[in-house]
């Protein structure tokens, strides 16, 4: 919990933080990254180089996936992307302006 010394200066940020923290504290979650529409990370719990790598690659992949879905059916849109690999699962939720990436290790 964030305790602000002088009143409610950042209620929005606090709420965002809380939600993200809730996701982060699930079992097996390795990291969360919030990325803007251009692929620049805004907030992350991993180290910088990993974050930048994930952000860049997944941003492109999400764009590709979204365009695929829309090509198949123009009235459809991508809501959630889950990539399951041997070691982890990467979950991406796209939006018009942002992208939220969560990496989880499912078999712990």
């Amino acid at each position, binding site marked *: 919990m964030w305790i602000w010394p002088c009143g409610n200066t*950042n209620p*929005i*940020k606090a*709420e*965002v933080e809380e*939600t*993200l923290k*809730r*996701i982060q504290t*699930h*079992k*097996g*979650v390795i990291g969360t990254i*919030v990325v*803007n529409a*251009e*692929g*620049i*990370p*805004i*907030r992350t719990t991993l180290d*910088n180089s990993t974050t*930048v790598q994930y*952000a*860049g690659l997944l941003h492109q992949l999400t764009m590709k996936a979204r365009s695929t879905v829309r090509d198949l059916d123009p009235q459809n849109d991508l*809501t*959630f992307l*889950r990539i*399951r690999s041997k070691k982890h*699962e990467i*979950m991406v*939720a796209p*939006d018009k*302006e*942002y992208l*939220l990436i*969560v990496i*989880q290790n*499912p*078999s712990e």
Partner: protein
Amino acid sequence: MQATGHPNDILPLTLTSATQELFGCRCDEDVTGDNPYKILRKEDIVQDMRMRAAVSDFSPVKQLVLDYPEDELLLVYDRDFIYGSSFYLVLTADAKDRHLKPVVALGVEVALEREPSEVFAAQKTSEPQPWISLGSEQEIEEESVTDSRPRLKYRISRVRREFGAPIFFSDRNAMETKDGFLECTPYQDKNFSLKQMERHTGVQTIPNLKSSSTQTQWTYPRSMCTQYEPREFSKEEKENCLQSENLKNFVNSVASRFEIAIQQNEIMDVFFDDWKALSEEDSGYGRKADPHLKEYQSFTDLHFSKDKTISNINWHPTINGVIAVAVTERLSFEDRINGSTKLLLNPSLILFWSFSDPINPQLLLECPDDVFSFEFCPSDPNIIVGGCMNGQVVLWDISTHVEQLQGTRTSGGKNIAANTNALQGFEDKRENETPVVRYCAVSGIENGHKAPITDIQWLPGTFEVSRMGVPMENRNGICVQIVTCAPDCCVMFWDIRAPRVLQTMADQRKQKVEEKPLENPHGVPNTFKHLDLTWKPLIRVSLPKIDTSGEYSPLKISLRDNTCDNHTGSNAGIDADRAHLNAERSEVAPEYALLRVLSAKQLKPLEDICTQLYAGTEDGELVYTDWKLEKDNDSGRLFSAKPSHRFIIHDGQVNTVRRSPFFKDIILTVGGWTFAIWKEGVMNGPIIQSSCSQKKCTVGYWSQSRPAVLFIGKEDGNIDVWDLLEKTHEPSQTQNITATQITCIKPWIVSSKQHLLAVSDYLGTLHILEIPWTLRSPSSNEKLSMSKYFEKEVDRLVYFEKRREMRAKEKKDSEAEELRKKMEPIIPEKQVEQILEEAMKEYEDYLSLETVILKEMGLLPDTNKVDI
């Protein structure tokens, strides 16, 4: 002679047999090959022709026959069909004559051919004929040269006075006189100027060709590189983003999807193939079902290990196939004293065996006394430290012989490399003998242990111990300190670097040292010259007994997870940074002589090192103590604290205290007839204790690849393989290796396909066994199962503890209860009367209550009745 055609004067003719009979020229009867001629009368032929007209055989030659001048014609029988028919008719008289006559000519010609010499003779004897002029003499006349007139004679003479006169030559210009020279001027010969009036030429049109060239400027290639950086937001920008409303909405809307997905993953792993996972466990049974340890090789040396036993084995950490054994005498204490002079003459040795040569050891290390424990330095495998029977700690440096050890491994046989200059004087004589390396440093006898050193270990390169007994950071990154223990109730820490005190003196003496060459009588490397004979331990930790006075006598110790296990080569408990440092520095072999103990002030003390150690004692106890020395405030001396815990568990000496390579807090202790497994932190007792076996357990070791397997050696030469996940009441298999007591077991992983187990026995033989597949490949989740099992055992212990307490309490309570009960029968009657009174009173109360209630409810009848 065979002509396909026929000459003009004969005609081939075919005569029928009737004609032949008529004219009497039947084939092979009247006319034969020898006598083919038959004279026929013309009249007969003409008559025949008239009689038979066209049918007659002579009809084609009718005219010729009529024209024939003579009366008789010749018919020749052509037996060989030379002219194509069986007969031929000779048409002219000449030919007839020739035919009849040439028999003679032929004969002459044949005769001539047979006698060629006669031919020449015949020719030579021919007479010259008169010459007929054919005009050739005129030609000859024309060609011959004859004088047409008589030859003219000229006589030239000179005036006599000019004879012998000198000759004068002079020049004359040819141009002066008119006819000084004759000139043949060239002229164009008209014969040869021909004008060609016609000529055949071919014409072809081609485009306009223009040849031009350019030159490009040669630029030489240069390496270029681009470096890019990902775009990132600055902190303020990030803050801005984080505070935007959009982000909040986004995160809120999206969070629920994530929660669902994450929870799905937590519940179960959808992609886990249960079927496949089942089969993996079963496959172990099917193939390679032979679970026995197979004998791979065995080493005995008749010369060096005769009447001796092996006390300790160690695999060489880097060179494959090289194993070192410490060979000690098999004598009891009294025998040692009695035979001490003989022992002095036979030096104790550590033998290095190589798989390529099972008969001769590759290297011998000389020790001042029998060595009971020795170890390779993990950061530099050329340094070996050993603890002797007289309490001395010995150091060897085998860097000069390493190539030889490596060489023998690959090439087999003995190649003594050129750089074994260990024993210079004896080199020639001893070329075929095993090289002996003398120890390069030995500790001073007064300062060392007073009893045989039974356990010696290298401290890892992650921390070092200062003089105050506090763990400090280790700047070198390599192993420089050793811990030893002996039954003289001490655990000592040693440092292989030169102590700081000597530094100043060393500087002064430096010049002197450099001038005279360092004496090196035995060819011993100078690596540890600074320690030789003056080596003192850094700190000394004693183990005072908890309850009573006196001290524990440790035989084996085990420090916490920061010690290196040589055999797995892993330093557990290091962060990535330290490991990285280690990797960097291990490239260069450290120059030990130059290392100095740094002052305690320069180093930073490390807080997170666990300083507890387990020690197994001679009395079968396991003692848990802290080796950090404390300062006694009164006297300022350092002393070691009392051990925190002590467990009596084994019936004999504890001969093994070993941590599991998979779990750093699980310890195996073997002693007497049992073995026990402990968990650090659980102080109630051993979490697993085996049942007593028939024979004494002499040594134990964890398996390097399977967390649940351990090997126990017995005194009858058996090896018990315990698989704790299979059964815990008895070993899963027992195998007899040798006839005598097993003294040491050390497994080693050579490759993923080959795991070897080195077992030494009391008679001095080293057996190398191969671990079968079932014992070396872990089942799936074996580590997890083992850790769960240990946790279960810990819970069991805790539960038992609790139950015990509870029972004790219960017992106490029940005793108190009984005591109280004894006090009760003193006042029984009084109570009975009281009870009756009380009961009556209650009953009356109840009745009054009843009446009141009924009154309120209006159910009571007018007359008051008293119910009895």
